């Protein structure tokens, strides 16, 4: 049992949980993730990136967007309650070293996993430039924490409600054109964003690392459900990743695989919401 120490909504549908998991807090490195099950027996296993950890407190921080049934269930848990099953840290940690200038691009909820990586890159002596993107102002998370790390921060929203009215690829292109250009780009966010960030940096031949969040079951290399095509090879996101060279990832295939269970996911979410509405009506 993994007790929830604190819970906070960062936006309308983005939740931050601090969870007791002392061993994971001790072992985890930036870039790694956990898999959890929000209810016993019939619950599904979903991967979530570790946004932060506090070994002294024995806690890890999870930041997630409420999108499917399991994240709904998770968001319904309150402080003092526990997550029934949680395993990690999984995946290979981010390769941290002094590259020079590192550009981090975080889109939406992707800002959360980018946070510990950006911090580690800064601590390793890099100049860190961050691009934070969100659909609209309310969905922008961790701005203050990110600004505290970065040497330079660019915020943009799709609708222009805050910062620049632009997609993250626009400032990314400008950074690529600077002299000297960045030494490394790290893009974490929705697949389509990572795909276009990779396409943006390709002509400049700037190494671009992306962090993939595919469908997983075990997270230890056993099932292969998370596999992606990288270059000519098949890779398992859970043990070979989650970070890959964005220029090599077969994006259409990866994005199609993410949608494999869409009808079932939509139905499960609808059924859950309907049941939750029913419970609320009864409460009244």
């Amino acid at each position, binding site marked *: 049992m993994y007790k929830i120490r604190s819970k906070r909504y960062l936006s309308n549908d983005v939740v931050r949980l601090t969870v007791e998991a002392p*061993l*994971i807090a001790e*072992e985890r490195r930036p870039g790694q993730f956990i898999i959890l*099950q929000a*209810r016993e*027996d*019939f*619950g*599904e*296993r979903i991967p979530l990136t570790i946004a932060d950890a506090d070994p002294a407190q024995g806690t890890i921080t999870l930041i997630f967007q409420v999108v499917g*049934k*399991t994240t709904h269930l998770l968001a319904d848990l309150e402080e003092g309650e526990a997550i*029934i*099953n*949680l*395993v*990690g*840290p*999984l995946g290979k940690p981010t390769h941290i070293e002094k590259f020079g200038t590192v550009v981090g691009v975080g889109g939406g909820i992707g800002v959360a996993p980018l946070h510990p990586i950006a911090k580690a890159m800064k601590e390793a002596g890099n100049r860190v430039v961050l691009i934070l993107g969100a659909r609209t102002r309310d969905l922008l998370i961790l701005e203050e924490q990110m600004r505290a790390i970065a040497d330079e921060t660019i915020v943009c929203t799709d609708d222009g409600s805050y910062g620049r009215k632009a997609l993250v690829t626009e400032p990314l292109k400008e950074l690529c054109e600077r002299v000297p250009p960045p030494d490394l780009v790290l893009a974490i966010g929705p697949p389509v964003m990572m795909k276009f960030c990779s396409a943006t940096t390709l002509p400049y031949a700037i190494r671009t690392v992306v962090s993939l969040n595919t469908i997983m*079951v*075990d997270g*230890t*290399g*056993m*099932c*292969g*459900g998370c*596999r*992606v*095509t990288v270059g000519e090879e*098949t890779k398992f996101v859970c*043990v070979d990743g989650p970070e890959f060279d964005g220029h090599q990832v*077969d994006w*259409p*295939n990866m994005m*199609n*695989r993410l*949608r*494999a*269970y869409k*009808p*079932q*996911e939509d139905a*499960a979410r609808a059924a859950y919401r309907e049941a939750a509405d029913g419970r609320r009506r009864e409460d009244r």
Partner: protein
Amino acid sequence: MSHPAPEELSEAARTALAEILGRSEPLTPKDRLKIPAQQMPAQPPGERRHNMDEVALGYTAEQARIEALRCLQCKRQPCVEGCPVRIDIPAFVKAVGDGDFDQAVAIVKRNSLLPAICGRVCPQEVQCQQNCTVGRSLKDVGKAVSIGRLERFVADREREAGEIDTPPVKAETGKRVAVVGSGPASLVVAADLRRKGHAVTIFEAFHKPGGVMLYGIPEFRLPKRIVQTEIDTLLAMGVEIRTNFVIGRTRKLHDLIEKDGYDAIFVGTGAGLPKFMHIEGENLVGVFSANEFLTRVNLMRAYDRDRADTPVFDMRKVAVLGGGNVAMDCSRCALRLGAEEVHLVYRRTEKEMPARAEEVAHAKEEGVNFHILQNAIRMLGDAQGCVRAMECLRYELGEPDGSGRRRPVPIEGSELVMELDTVIVAIGNESNPLIKQTTPDLETNKWGNITVDENGATSIPGVFAGGDIVSGAATVILAMGQGRIAAEAMHEFIVGKSTRRKRR
């Protein structure tokens, strides 16, 4: 195969047993050979392909006794020879024949820790039953004494009567053992070492213990409550089980010794890395490894669609690649999940299939279509990136290869296309690299299997290994046999006598 109703089989057995017991003369070997082999009562194929309940229903007491009376109690005991854990088969079968079922199960359990499981999933026809004198006399291995079914019967009877005794545990030695993984090899190691008084902790990566018996073998072949009973026995003995714990990630192997103070470690992590064909289109949506498909269905219980949150792919026409037990399990699960057509594609013939004859027969009875001497060469996708067809080649058998089986040779120009929406790749497993990657000094062979000596000792003192991580994908009973040997060596190691490897 005909399918008499269980009541019919039971009635016939009752009559036959009464007749035998009413005789004044003892049974001669000739009489025994005339006793009809008892058929296993089973759910009818048309019915069972729509449910996940166990297919084989188990002998009645009368059936068990009659089947046992077929044993000649021959001096040669080829059955014991064929048993990887050397159960005293003639003695236990005799006890069944005498109706002394308590004695029978006690004899079995002297050597086998998990009889209810082995009685169900062991390939008896190539082990204890292969050279049975009865089968030889009747010139049909299928007519050997059904040792496995008798083993299952006595174990089930004990469990259902709630009579399972918790094995006695010796006084605490103060020594601590870590067991990595909770499949059959690990469970045996845990039980054997706990019995000797050592503190045992099992580390399992999944949220439930049981390994392949839980995530791999389907409910209709091995009900999960039976695995749970074995786990409960271990817990009652004082074994600690830590789920959600990945050795190599949550803790490194060396940390268990250096930081956590374990005196010895057993690695039984299984062959958990699915093999793929490495052909075009294999990553299309709708192409799954057997591991993923079976884990969703079994461990995550996706077959219970109304209750399970884990989805299973919406499938109509399914192809399963492979000819082993896992391929049969996948095919039969697919039928039970509502697939309209299931096609098993195997590049050799039925004779070379590694699957048990019984599983092949069950799959056919349930309506799985077999396509032998055929293999996939590429998968074709639609505009959404979903698999829509599979291109295959026909094969013929050539000269024997390294495995002793005749090598399948592709027939030029024999390309054919199968339209389908789901492909399950069940061509085996390689060893999971996680522990190897994070434990550089652990020696492995070129297939990534951990190298061990005859006692299961690895290249790291105090670290032992067994099961599929050592032998590649094999059987439950072989894993158990290796677990038993390793447990003995670990005990020796712990109490101070060094292992052979260490003396060197």
